[in-house]
């Protein structure tokens, strides 16, 4: 909303400077955008919050100024001289959809001379950024900017059948607006029609055929109320937002419908001549039953934490236009809200009015806040621990968009088969589906770094993915699942990504107490290379085994697609399936004071045997004294080992919690290990 200071002076004499006015308006709720000198006038642009349509006109802003400066407010009372004819003989108004147009008022002036506006009117409109059209149209704009009630002027002779019909548009109905473009309307919109066709898009824009032109002699002045939703549907749906639609979306003062109509008639008679027909034609009725609001005197102090004297409360509310109802005393005081303040209907609303005029600087900033203990949630602990581990490992945290393109979304998700969920509008161009994995986004981020010559961008991200649950009755209440993921993309091979995945799990404490363990199984899954990827399965006592992660080397095809030229590995873990350990209190295990024994074992097995099976055999055979089982070397040599065989060199660290192991005991344990490996994977000890 742009205010002309010259114009404002018609209603209130502001004693201070423009800057002072701007400051006071700012501190009472009208945010300042800019101040511009226009000729001998000043344009002050203010931001009006959506609850204050009363300040979308100069009178409303003048009222604020009058309250802030304690100066009287002068609002004109237009009484245009009426002529001989009856308006009701010239036009019939019918409202077919009262829910979208509660009230419509028409006045008729015959015999106007359309021409240029006088300089004062041209200047005022120019200050607020509106071009002059002609004296009749300018009057409708002027009155709207004066009181906030939008008006429209029709060329009465072009209205067919002597009728105004307010109705919902028919689906697909065409309409030619003042800008001579043809629009296709929907049922959500409201039109003003004559006996035959739409002549205006209600509250938004007039029609080309009935617009005021140089030859217009008879004018119908429309002053009406339109509901916000149909106006918004038209303004947004057809990209036709106008000063009129802006105001109707916020709800002008219903009391201004008649005032604005009279004001416009008076100004038109003055500027364009003609004769005003007697009376007005009204359909519907103005819905305006101002609220009566109880306000016990102490309520203000209860909310603000600082008292405002009762006399001051009364002074502020009265100046703002609230009217005190008779009451028995301060505890039962009641106020009737003015018609232009439909945002005020509860005591809390009155408290805000008193506070914003009195000023929030009176509210203390030294109130006592009692201490209260808190704890981090398991999820928060989990997220932080995972981040600490990866930052500690040298990775940088990335943040990528939750919404991806069709090409990205096409990459399979490790977490579900259902297709990605579409959204509208797209987040950015082309990105219109919720991601089911963070991996494509992180690969793209690494590719972006390669593109600027940085080839060592090791990245991780902690964020959600979005999965549509299969459509079943059970899932009806929560059709979407939002797994919390940590993903990482690093240069290197499978072992590096697996090491990082293991570190995250270890950092979270997964499996530390033997209650749970992680199992790696080969998996074929985009964007990983075939034969170079695994799923990580959590096996937990008392729970079904569940996939908690995937890890692998990125396939050549995927690397090419994301602009990656070197070997890249990646992993993704379900933090929401790993957070169960976050708050686990485990009994401390006292480190043993007895010495450890190290034994190297060289096992020869078939090359198809997997380390995991060997490790399982060793672990189960060695029992509790096995402190560490480290794979030191894997080698193959057809001559020395035989074709199709491989050697696994394993270092076992053995330590007892209850005594020093003797050489014989260690030997027995190694023998048991070798025997178990022989039994399970046909391992042979190489001496």
């Amino acid at each position, binding site marked *: 909303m742009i205010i002309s200071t010259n114009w404002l002076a018609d209603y209130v004499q502001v004693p201070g400077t423009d800057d002072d006015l701007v400051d006071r308006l700012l*501190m009472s*709720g009208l*945010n300042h955008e800019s101040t511009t000198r226009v000729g001998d006038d000043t344009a002050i642009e203010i931001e009006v919050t*959506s*609850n204050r349509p009363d300040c979308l006109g100069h009178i409303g802003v003048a009222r604020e100024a009058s309250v802030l400066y304690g100066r009287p407010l002068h609002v004109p009372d237009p009484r245009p001289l009426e002529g001989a004819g009856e308006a009701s003989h010239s036009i019939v108004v019918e409202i077919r959809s009262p829910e979208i147009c509660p009230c419509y008022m028409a006045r008729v002036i015959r015999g106007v001379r359309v021409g240029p506006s006088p300089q004062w009117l041209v200047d005022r409109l120019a200050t607020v950024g509106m071009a002059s059209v002609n004296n009749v149209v300018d009057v409708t704009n002027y009155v709207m900017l004066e009181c906030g009630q939008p008006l429209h002027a029709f060329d009465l002779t072009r209205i067919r059948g002597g009728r105004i019909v307010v109705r919902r548009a028919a689906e697909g109905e065409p309409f030619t607006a003042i800008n001579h473009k043809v629009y296709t309307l929907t049922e959500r919109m409201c039109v003003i029609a004559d006996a035959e066709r739409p002549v205006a898009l209600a509250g938004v824009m007039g029609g080309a055929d009935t617009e005021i032109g140089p030859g217009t002699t008879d004018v119908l002045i429309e002053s009406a109320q339109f*509901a916000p*939703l149909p106006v918004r549907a038209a303004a*947004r749906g057809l990209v036709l937002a106008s000063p009129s639609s802006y105001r109707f979306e916020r709800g002008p003062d219903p009391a201004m419908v008649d005032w604005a109509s009279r004001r416009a008639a008076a100004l038109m008679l003055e500027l364009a001549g003609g004769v005003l027909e007697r009376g007005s034609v009204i359909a519907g009725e103005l819905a305006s039953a101002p609220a009566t609001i109880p306000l016990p005197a102490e309520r203000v102090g*209860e*909310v*603000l934490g600082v008292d405002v004297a009762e006399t001051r409360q009364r002074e502020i509310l009265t100046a703002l236009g609230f009217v005190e109802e008779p009451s028995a005393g301060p505890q039962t005081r009641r106020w009737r809200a003015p018609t232009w303040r439909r945002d005020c209907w509860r005591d*809390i609303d009155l*408290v*805000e009015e008193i506070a*914003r005029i009195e000023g*929030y*600087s009176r*509210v*203390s*900033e*030294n*109130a*006592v*806040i009692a201490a*209260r*203990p*808190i704890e*981090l*949630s398991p999820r928060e602990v989990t997220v932080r621990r995972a*981040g600490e581990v*990866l*930052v500690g490992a*040298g990775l*940088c*945290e990335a*943040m*990528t968009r*939750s*919404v991806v393109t069709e090409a990205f979304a096409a990459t399979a998700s490790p977490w579900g088969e259902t297709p990605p*969920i*579409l*959204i*509208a*509008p797209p*987040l*950015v161009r082309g990105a219109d589906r*919720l991601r089911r994995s963070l991996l494509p986004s992180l690969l793209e981020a690494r590719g972006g*770094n390669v593109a*600027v010559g*940085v080839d*060592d*961008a*090791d990245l991780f991200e902690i964020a959600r993915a*979005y999965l549509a649950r299969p459509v079943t009755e059970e899932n*009806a*209440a*929560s*059709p*979407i699942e*939002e797994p919390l993921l940590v993903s990482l993309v690093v240069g290197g091979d499978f072992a590096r990504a697996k090491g990082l995945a293991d570190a995250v799990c270890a950092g979270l404490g997964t499996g530390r107490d033997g209650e749970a363990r992680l199992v790696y199984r080969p998996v074929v899954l985009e964007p990983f290379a075939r034969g170079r990827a695994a799923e990580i399965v959590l096996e937990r006592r008392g729970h079904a085994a569940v996939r908690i992660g995937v890890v692998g080397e990125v396939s050549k095809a995927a690397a090419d697609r994301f602009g990656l030229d070197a070997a890249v590995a990646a992993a993704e873990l379900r933090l929401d399936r790993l957070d169960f350990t976050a708050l686990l209190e485990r009994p401390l295990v006292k480190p043993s004071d007895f010495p450890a024994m190290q034994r190297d074992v060289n096992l020869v097995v078939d090359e198809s045997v997997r380390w995991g099976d060997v490790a399982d055999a060793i672990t189960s055979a060695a029992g509790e004294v096995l402190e560490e089982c480290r794979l030191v070397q894997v080698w193959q040599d057809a001559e020395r080992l035989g074709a199709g065989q491989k050697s696994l060199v394993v270092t076992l660290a053995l330590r007892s919690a209850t005594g020093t192991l003797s050489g014989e005991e260690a030997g027995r344990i190694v023998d048991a290990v070798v025997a178990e490996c022989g039994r399970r994977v046909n391992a042979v000890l190489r001496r």
Partner: protein
Amino acid sequence: MTAVPLDSFRADLERLRADAETALAAATDAAALEAARVEFLGARSGRLKAIQKSLGGLDTSDKPAGGRHFNDAKNAITAGLEAAQIRLAEASGGAEAASIDVTLPGTPVPIGHLHPLTRTIRRVQEIMGRLGFESVDGPEVEDQWHNFEALAISAEHPARDPLDNFYLAVARGADPLLLRSQTSTVQIRVMENREPPLRIVSLGRVYRPDTADATHYPMFHQVEGLLVEPGTTMAHLKSVLRLFASSFLGGDVRVRFRPSFFPFTEPSVEVDMEWGGRWVEMGGAGMVDPAVLEAVGYDPDAVSGFAFGLGVERIAARRYGVDDIRDFYRNDVRFLRQF
């Protein structure tokens, strides 16, 4: 055989100890040290061994004391020998190893970095945590109730326009779902499930269809605080925000309220904080609207509360001097490594 008197046994020990100290201190090379070791601690004919033999000649009642004295002396001489060995090793080692180019690079250790937005969020969480506010989290896909209705955003409010939100093609029955446009949704969820007193900060990603430019991005982060306790006033709100500002910005920062409008607070204010000598807009705040308290089943006559929201990108941009918030989402490690 006459028993050896304890006093003379002790005197022998003391003499031995003094001689050993002198000899060990005098040794300037490994050979001299070895000679001293053999003389005093030699297993076969060392002087200590000789004295040990006379231990057996003590009177039975004197044996425990004699044993203690003997052990003390033995430990002292052994420690002296070790100290002398270290002294000689250090003296010779420094001279023998080749000197190094100390300007050669150390073994590189990769340093990871948390994202500046995460750092900012953590800092807010940490400060608010000290004030008793607990961090909470909730779904990003929301329904009409939590994103709008419970927050007193009526069906007619422009914020609900389909063009101003990211609606999902998937619905829950007849209830359209959308990406949340604010984290107040989480506050509603917490209030629905818990009774006051309550102090929480909800944080996370939110989504609004803005064209991306230097100050807007269609996905951004919010931190929103909520306190609901009996007798809460705007003075509590202002005091908490001043404490926050002083802690976040450092020093004795002042806070200013300007009247504003949000559907879910009444009164509503914009919060300015004094930063670098001028007022900077930090976010919105207000007293929780009674309609919101009622929507979650609280009694507005029994409890009151306040809420505030901060745009994480905005305060992070200001704090770190980032002039284009899109930089937060470019994931250029040359940017990320600076935090």
